[in-house]
């Protein structure tokens, strides 16, 4: 996170605390898009994401006074967003998600690959497949349970470091790394099946 961002956040927090005119506008300017997008990627529904974003901003305004500042402001607001969204998901019938276990690579007892591997990496380097690949990654990511999806979105989509993601989710860095890796292994497997099926069909 850049020093610039830090300074912006510090000033913003201070003006929110004091109730300076324009503080809320600045908060919206800096975070409206990010919070809505983060909520969208967790909730996958526009009206849910909008309501969640309302809750997030109200919580931030209400709690700006008591925010301790021992973590960065953006990580605090992301954390509020993640918690708000997860609480909304909890209240709902859980979306049907795939089991990540079904898409982990399979090994023999000796730790060797249990089935032959196809190298499709050259194929996806061709431009024609790029957009399709992006769409597939999106689709498969959406099917992940939120435990993995949230980590994947913060790290790979938002581009946050493992340390930042760990702070936001209140998890350890090794836990983040492991979830992220499993999410990528899962994606690789899904893409593999998709591309090979396409070839067969």
């Amino acid at each position, binding site marked *: 996170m850049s020093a610039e961002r830090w300074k912006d956040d510090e000033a913003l927090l201070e003006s929110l605390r004091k109730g300076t005119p324009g503080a809320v506008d600045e908060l919206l300017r800096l975070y409206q898009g990010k919070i809505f997008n983060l909520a969208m990627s967790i909730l996958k529904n526009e009206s849910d994401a909008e309501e969640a974003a309302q809750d997030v901003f109200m919580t931030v305004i209400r709690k700006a006074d008591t925010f301790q500042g021992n973590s960065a402001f953006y990580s605090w607001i992301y954390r509020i967003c993640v918690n708000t969204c997860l609480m909304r998901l909890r209240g709902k019938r859980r979306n049907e998600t795939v089991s990540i276990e079904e898409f982990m690579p399979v090994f023999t007892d000796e730790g060797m690959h249990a089935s032959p591997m196809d190298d499709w990496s050259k194929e996806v380097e061709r431009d024609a497949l790029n957009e399709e690949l992006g769409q597939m990654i999106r689709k498969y990511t959406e099917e992940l349970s939120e435990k993995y999806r949230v980590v994947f979105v913060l790290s790979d989509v938002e581009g946050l470091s493992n340390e930042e993601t760990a702070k936001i989710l209140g998890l350890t860095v090794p836990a983040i790394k492991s979830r992220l890796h499993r999410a990528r*292994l899962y994606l690789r497997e899904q893409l593999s099946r998709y591309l090979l099926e396409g070839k067969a069909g």
Partner: protein
Amino acid sequence: MNCKELAYMLADYCNGSMDPRLREELDDHLSRCEPCMAFTKTFRATCEGTRKLREAIEYAIPAEVRERLGTFVRAAALKYPEKMREYRDQIERDRREKVADLVSAATAGKLSSASALLMESHCAACPECSGYFDALRSTGTPPAGDPPAGIRSHLIALMQALPPGEEFFLA
């Protein structure tokens, strides 16, 4: 290193953060194992695909959502200090009422047994409160206005010490 171990180390390998000795071992395995080579290449392609996806995602918030969200948050933020003040005023009014009730119940000897006990032991240790109540009892008239701030805070603490649901005066 076997194929399984290799598969679970690929993240560090791909982002270049792997320990050089391990990396050598991994490269050695790759050069001898065709499935792992294919696995590694396709894993890399997957990560690359995600990176491209990240670049392609723009922070798009639909204009009408931006509009609505902004209006809602600004309006709520404006009302917020007012709401807080209302809330604090309400609490203050409730408290004042309760303190007045407690004082008149204590003056009239109508405290419940639990609060009479609390009051007694407090007054035994607190000359301020015992002086205040002694004076009230001797005149027998309820006080005009709030008790002094010090006494008031003692009484509030006393009421908070009562078990929940316990009334401090006799019906």
